[in-house]
């Protein structure tokens, strides 16, 4: 009976035409073989890009150079706009530095502690005071003040532009759409590529550094403000409207308060981005810690570079933790009075106390101790010990590192670079087009092909291929480490907990910081240090997104797999990894973009390629060369970004609600990092709304 029943449906409805069982292997094999054949065939043709297609883009811009020099003192553009702007920036930063130094070191330490304590709690107050004091201890007091002044003013300007723009974009979808491509571009382009125009029009020093920093730090302020305003639920807006709110009332009483956590995250992000520009700022001769790092690196004084780098890291950590704690407290406290030692203290009393403490600190510093600068006797530079470590490790580990470096060079870097430069340009362009076609369609294929062609047409073919080869090697190495670690972290809460603080710390540090310790071991002059540094720099994002993707797999689906008796490996391979794919691919995209940014900076420590060329153009003020290199970096970044973003374009869960799609390197990571805490807020909001 049971058998008959089971047979019956088959009898009535014949099975559909059997789908031939096809393993993916033959198809993949065809692809691999096809690409290999293309590469082999390519080797028979002239390598690189033919000179006759190279456009003289550079020489066009060289004219601008002389024009600027000739007209700097006469043309209205300079006399009426740029020169006053330049002077104003210079005066403001100088003024702030002077103000800070006149507050004296005692005053600054107390003020930093009191302010941080006021907004973020006494622990953060102590952290801030200790942080400021450490600038003195490390013997980089004045440099730190300069860096802080530059960062502070850049952040204020970025926020003054970014927050209103973000509010506007959050309220009007049209504005948002119009702004998006600009913000995308600002975040994808490595800062190097737009430094030169700023130098040309604003000279050297603080003005171009500030302008470049604002460009770099503006996008997260706009994006996160817009995201916050936009995420206010439609019902809540309806509520406000139904009670007769004016548009202004809706903004002031509903949208802004509800967007505050997101805006605070934007402030935090803007600060971190601005700090990430410190060394780049030094490239255009702005004073500060970056200058110290750069000068030391040029002279191969690793210890001194490390010393100044440490100060930047401390500044980053203090600002990050204080602003994060501030926004968390704002959310929790919501205007309630603070309790200290069991007694309720009003907010006003705290403000008075903080101001009083700062004032006393400044007074003591000016009138009692009478010393602006941090006392020489209290300094302890880590340069000497670090140099000792460098020497020691070079003596003892140098050979091993040398061997690793040599293996990396001989085994991966050199062959890949040789291959990429030996191939004719059209093979590379065809491969890019193929990739574009496969992940998205004909439009991306054409776009990729044209971009690669333009790389050649700009005349930077070999440099670009050189940079590309380093990027590819670093990306592969980074992913080889990151994905397994991410899987491990997703499977074990203990591992997750253990690496979380480490990843947090790694993500707080500006990219170039990784270059310094790497130089301890690997010799300058090869791309190896840049590869290692970029691998390390990009690791957290790969680990995080793999981990996040797997952890986001709905529990019911995992349960279903287990109910059918899947082993742990089967669960991973058949359920978790496929579902985590979008998130992991986003990780690949982010890894590539981060690696690219470090490899470009790595130009200054011997990685060569486009980064080095950009540095040369900047230092020699060759505008044409600078523009060409800048455009090349831009093209490379765009092609890599578009193709890898299309690969992972499915993850609605990641891109839509959290708004990650268009965010650049850092904010994306941060948004993900923040998503853990914002899940909680969303949860409560959800409870409030649902």
């Amino acid at each position, binding site marked *: 009976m049971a058998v008959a029943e089971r047979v019956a449906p088959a009898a009535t409805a014949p099975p559909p035409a059997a789908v031939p069982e096809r393993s993916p292997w033959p198809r993949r094999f065809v692809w691999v073989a096809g690409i290999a054949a293309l590469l082999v065939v390519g080797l028979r043709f002239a390598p690189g890009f033919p000179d006759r297609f190279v456009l003289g883009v550079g020489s066009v811009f060289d004219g601008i150079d002389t024009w600027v020099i000739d007209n700097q003192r006469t043309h209205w553009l300079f006399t009426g706009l740029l020169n006053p702007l330049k002077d104003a920036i210079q005066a403001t930063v100088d003024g702030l530095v002077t103000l800070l130094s006149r507050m004296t070191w005692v005053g600054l330490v107390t003020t930093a502690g009191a302010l941080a304590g006021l907004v973020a709690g006494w622990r953060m107050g102590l952290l801030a005071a200790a942080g400021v004091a450490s600038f003195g201890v490390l013997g980089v007091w004045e440099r730190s003040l300069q860096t802080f002044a530059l960062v502070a003013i850049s952040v204020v300007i970025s926020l003054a532009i970014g927050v209103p723009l973000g509010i506007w974009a959050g309220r009007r979808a049209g504005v948002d759409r119009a702004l998006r491509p600009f913000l995308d571009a600002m975040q994808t382009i490595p800062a190097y590529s737009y430094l030169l125009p700023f130098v040309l029009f604003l000279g050297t020093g603080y003005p171009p550094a500030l302008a470049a920093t604002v460009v770099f730090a503006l996008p997260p302020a706009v994006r996160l403000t817009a995201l916050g305003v936009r995420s206010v639920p439609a019902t809540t807006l309806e509520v406000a409207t139904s*009670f007769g*709110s004016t548009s202004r009332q809706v903004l002031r009483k509903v949208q802004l308060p509800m967007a505050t956590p997101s805006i605070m995250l934007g402030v935090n992000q803007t600060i971190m981005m601005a700090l990430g520009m410190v060394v780049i700022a030094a490239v255009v001769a702005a004073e500060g810690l970056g200058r110290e790092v750069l000068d030391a690196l040029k002279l191969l004084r690793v210890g001194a570079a490390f010393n100044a780098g440490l100060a930047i890291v401390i500044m980053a950590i203090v600002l990050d933790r204080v602003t994060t704690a501030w926004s968390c407290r704002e959310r929790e406290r919501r205007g309630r009075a603070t309790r200290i030692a069991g007694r309720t203290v009003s907010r006003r009393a705290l403000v008075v106390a903080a101001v009083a403490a700062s004032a006393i600190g400044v007074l003591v510093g000016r009138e009692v101790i009478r010393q602006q600068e941090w006392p020489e006797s209290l300094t302890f530079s880590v340069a000497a010990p670090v140099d000792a470590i460098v020497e020691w490790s070079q003596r003892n580990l140098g050979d091993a590192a040398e061997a690793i470096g040599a293996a990396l060079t001989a085994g991966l870097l050199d062959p890949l670079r040789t291959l990429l430069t030996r191939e004719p340009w059209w093979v590379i362009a065809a491969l890019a087009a193929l990739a574009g076609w496969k992940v998205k369609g004909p439009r991306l294929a054409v776009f990729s092909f044209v971009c690669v062609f333009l790389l050649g047409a700009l005349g930077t073919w070999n440099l670009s291929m050189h940079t590309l080869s380093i990027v590819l090697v670093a990306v592969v190495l980074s992913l080889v480490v990151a994905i397994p670690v991410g899987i491990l972290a997703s499977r074990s809460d203990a591992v997750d907990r253990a690496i979380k603080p480490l990843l947090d710390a790694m993500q707080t540090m500006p990219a170039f910081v990784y270059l310094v310790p790497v130089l301890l071991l690997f010799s300058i002059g090869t791309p190896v240090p840049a590869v290692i540094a970029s691998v390390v720099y990009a690791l957290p994002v790969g680990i995080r997104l793999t981990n996040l993707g797997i952890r986001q797999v709905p529990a019911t689906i995992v349960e279903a797999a287990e109910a059918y008796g899947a082993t742990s490996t089967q669960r991973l391979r058949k359920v978790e990894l496929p579902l985590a794919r979008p998130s992991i691919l986003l990780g690949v995209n982010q890894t590539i973009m981060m690696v690219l940014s470090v490899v470009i900076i790595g130009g200054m420590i011997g990685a060569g390629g486009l980064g080095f060329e950009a540095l040369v153009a900047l230092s020699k003020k060759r505008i044409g060369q600078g523009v060409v290199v800048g455009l090349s970096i831009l093209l490379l970044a765009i092609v890599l970004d578009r193709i890898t973003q299309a690969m992972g374009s499915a993850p609605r869960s990641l891109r839509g609600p959290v708004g990650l799609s268009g965010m650049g390197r850092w904010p994306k990571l941060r948004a993900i990092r923040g998503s853990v805490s914002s899940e909680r807020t969303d949860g409560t909001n959800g409870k409030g*709304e649902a």
Partner: protein
Amino acid sequence: MGDPTVSCRNLWKVYGPRPERVVGSAEADLPRAELLERTGCVVAVRDVSFDVAPGEVFVVMGLSGSGKSTLVRMINRIHEPTAGTVLIDGEDLRACDEEQLREIRRRKISMVFQHFGLLPHRRIVDNVAFGLEIQGVEKADRLAIAERVLEKVGLAGWGNAYPEELSGGMQQRVGLARALANDPEILLFDEPFSALDPLIRRDMQDEVLSLQRDLKKTMIFITHDLAEALKLGDRIAIMKDGRFVQVGTPEEVVAHPADDYVADFTRDVPRAHVLTARAIMRPVNGEAPLDGPTVRTDTLVQALIPIVADADRTIRVVDDDRVVGVVDRTDVMRALVEEA
């Protein structure tokens, strides 16, 4: 009853490009998919007219997608009607400029929302005072009013809490309090209790009924729950595909469904709880002798059952001491059996 407080005439709401051309056209009667394909438009509300008297509870019942939420939002013009008129106390809402419209929203109409719509960043008391704050009422005054209203909805002492600290039922009490704080003439309810569990929902319905006895507001209440509609409504409108298919008292809807759609809805209603003697009585045509027990016209069938069981004579149905009809055991039985 006097002039209606809310009066809607030929209201249309069409979404899509150039929606005006669909209004009243032959195309408007096409099936949804075909209309969408031909014009790119979707009709949410079509040609709806109704009056709500002062102090009346008018319930609009329909399934999701029937257009009821759109309809209620046209009464305070959060959604702009495509065609038709809305009169609030005789004032044409669609003729109002921004300023006048805001004034009406601030003083005359308040709304209670399905998902409560509380502002998570404000204390309960500030949520309740929101409408007053928007009107520009002084802080001390509005907080005092808010505390009073909170007491009225049974949340005295919760003013300093935040929405997330309250249960769903309590949150909706806050939503109710917020609407009452403005002391509006008209209350709009957009499926206010559908997110609550059944017991809490019943409490809230009772709360609304008791508030209604005290305050005599004009209410327009949207729901997808027929039992809720029958319990709360003085009159019920059944809505389907943007149209009112039937408007009537709960009893009329249950006793005389206008079409199969309504009948389908009302089939499971325990009729004895809704129908009254008036609905099942027969006219008096010379039957003798008329000396049985008397009941009032609004006696529920439920209450009639023991009476007909005990009496062996035909029961007289009276309205103001005048006999208007008769009921006997068979009538009651039939009314109950039709339930199935």
